[in-house]
């Protein structure tokens, strides 16, 4: 599985990527929307994990841009806020089951990633 992690906190995404790699999941990371777009144009990913609040291009807008580039790409949102407003926005875009609140448990993240990829394979 190839996963792209997008969050403006580089320490968060780099460590999360390292922990996913230790579990056999290939994870790349970037800290802003522009780099995420370049990455998705250059490489195939199964799932993009996006922070809702990103500098310049927000997570919701970024999801739409990435989906336009790769229609089969799956999305998972994560946020530090956990506010109803963010939950509603994330749920609308990715479904209420694909929205995680930081701090994220790695097992929970992997479960969501596997569910998304397996759902794609069944379809």
């Amino acid at each position, binding site marked *: 599985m190839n996963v792209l992690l997008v969050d403006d906190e580089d320490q968060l995404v780099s460590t999360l990527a390292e*922990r996913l790699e*230790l579990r056999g999941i290939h994870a790349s990371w970037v800290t802003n929307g522009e780099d995420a777009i370049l990455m998705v144009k250059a490489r195939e990913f199964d799932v993009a994990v996006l922070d809702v609040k990103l500098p310049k291009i927000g997570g919701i807008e970024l999801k739409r841009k990435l989906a336009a580039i790769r229609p089969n790409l799956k999305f998972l949102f994560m946020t530090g806020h956990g506010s109803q407003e963010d939950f509603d926005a994330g749920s609308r875009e990715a479904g209420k089951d694909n929205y995680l609140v930081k701090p994220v448990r790695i097992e929970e993240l992997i479960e969501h990633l596997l569910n998304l990829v397996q759902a794609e394979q069944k379809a």
Partner: protein
Amino acid sequence: MAPSSSSEVSVAEDAPAVCGLQFFGAVSASISHELKNAIAIVNEHAGLLEDLAALAERGRPVDPKRLKQTATQIARQVQRADGIIRNMNRFAHSIDDPVKTVDLPDMICFLAALAERKATMAGVVIELACRDASFSVQTRPFFLLNLLWLCLKTLIEMIPSGAVVQLGTDPNDRGAGVWFSCENLDLPEETILNAIRKQAEPLLCVLNADVVIDRVTGCIALSVPKIICDA
């Protein structure tokens, strides 16, 4: 003209308090988001240490440098969280005294710290340009901070990503001036000034302050009295 109802009068009188509550909410939300991020990073580093320990138990050697690096990162995030909490505490206490003598350059630095996340999210850089080391005004500290926040927030929201906002303060004949400067504006300065005035009117009134465009420098210039009249 029909006389104002008592509820209309009450809303007008409450306007600074409503502004203040909105300000308190916005800053609290920003601080809580920053704290959540620091905690999330500590969580990942702690998780990584667990992962490395589990691998070591299974016979894979652990690089001591990697352990030290992770511990250093945890310590950095603890320091970061401590700084955020100190700012939160200072902000919460800014409402303790209705009127107080405040060091304006110090308040400007504090404002920049409070607004840093908002600026970063908009791709804007805040630069401090305080020329005088220290000078004071007697004012309503919470409402002044609220007014400064509104000016900076409005500017950040109306300027293009990548812009730099310069922020400074100087003593003047009336008391003190605080100026906000930004090059490469997409909008006329008057548009930004009007947007600030529209939101800040109750605060300008309660602080006996004024905000104008400085015709010489083109900056948005806020002016506050040395001593607030009804202190």
